[in-house]
């Protein structure tokens, strides 16, 4: 049972110190692997690949994966399930507490002009960060990384099928406002498989 307590505490600390999204936990996880011997750098690269190609927040996916590996290595499948739950809960505990406190304070000071002034800047930065993240997704979605690495020309690396699909989805989401994004994601996955994108 000690191993689960340790797992909880270690993921609690990761959740407490990693600020700025799921991938920010990566350096902490690398350090955890080195300190405990629970997993290797190879495990980490598998974990990142799986976390990015499964639904859900990347940070939680990584905690789930590692928690399962650690638990199942210790005592089989049931322990793996328990490990994945404990690691994920450990990782979100600090955030839940901090956000509730911040939220409480915001409600109290909502009418302060200083809060309003600060949020004027925060919102602009927030949209800027979303744009930067979007550009990152766009780069991966529209360009073949292999072609770029092989030194092909810029135009050779462009993935035209993806650009066309993206344009169609954009048309659908702006034209038919009632469509749920989930429906469009499922549609895109099916199109991806049919056209072997």
């Amino acid at each position: 049972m000690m191993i689960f307590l340790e797992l909880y505490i270690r993921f609690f600390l990761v959740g407490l110190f990693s600020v700025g999204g799921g991938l920010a936990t990566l350096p902490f996880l690398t350090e955890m692997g080195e300190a405990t011997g629970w997993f290797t750098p190879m495990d980490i690269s598998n974990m990142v690949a799986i976390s990015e190609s499964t639904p859900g927040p990347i940070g939680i996916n990584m905690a789930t994966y590692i928690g399962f590996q650690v638990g199942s290595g210790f005592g089989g499948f049931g322990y793996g399930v328990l490990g994945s739950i404990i690691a994920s809960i450990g990782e979100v505990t600090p955030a839940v507490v901090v956000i509730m406190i911040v939220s409480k304070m915001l409600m109290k000071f909502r009418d302060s002009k200083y809060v309003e002034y600060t949020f004027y800047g925060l919102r602009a930065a927030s949209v800027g960060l979303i744009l930067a993240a979007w550009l990152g997704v766009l780069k991966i979605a529209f360009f073949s990384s292999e072609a770029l690495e092989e030194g092909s020309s810029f135009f050779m690396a462009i993935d035209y099928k993806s650009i066309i699909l993206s344009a169609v989805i954009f048309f659908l989401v702006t034209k038919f406002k009632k469509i749920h994004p989930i429906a469009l994601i499922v549609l895109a996955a099916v199109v991806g498989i049919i056209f072997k994108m």
Partner: protein
Amino acid sequence: MKTLLQLFLIFARIGGFTFGGGYAMLPMLQKELVDNKKWTTNEELIDYYAIGQCTPGIIAVNVATFVGFKTKGVLGGIFATLGMITPSLIIVGSIAAFISGFQDYQVVQWAFSGIRAAVVALILNAMWKIAKKSLVDIFAVIIFLIVAALSFLTDISPVIFVLAAGVCGLIINLSGLRKAKEEKQK
């Protein structure tokens, strides 16, 4: 009780279909929380993202806690968060247990090429809605462009941008820069 269950289910649905992390769930949050349930507004959502980026933890979870807490207090925050992480536990847990080399299957890679293309379009649409509410004048646009460029081109932590932009917001307003501009426009 009914609202708690709804919070859990809505966030489970969002968590189960968000590919590519916290930013990719913005379109779904808008649809479920702003359009359908009217539990929050686009302005509040962007505030949650801003705070979620400079507080500990994962952005997606931070936003879930915020919305849940605002809707139904401490329990609401916990239920929304649990909803958000449940699909990950089931899906990633199953893959870790049963499928080795999941990401190497050809069919998975095809599906993901399609999903990534959709995510580009969906985030663009979501971002546009939020930009209209956030980029209210030239100073906001300047902050936005600087943050976007530096964040895309460098490895500087988002925390720095959010904190610096908050300070800029205070300075721009307190120094009277914005007011002077508004009066000039009149």
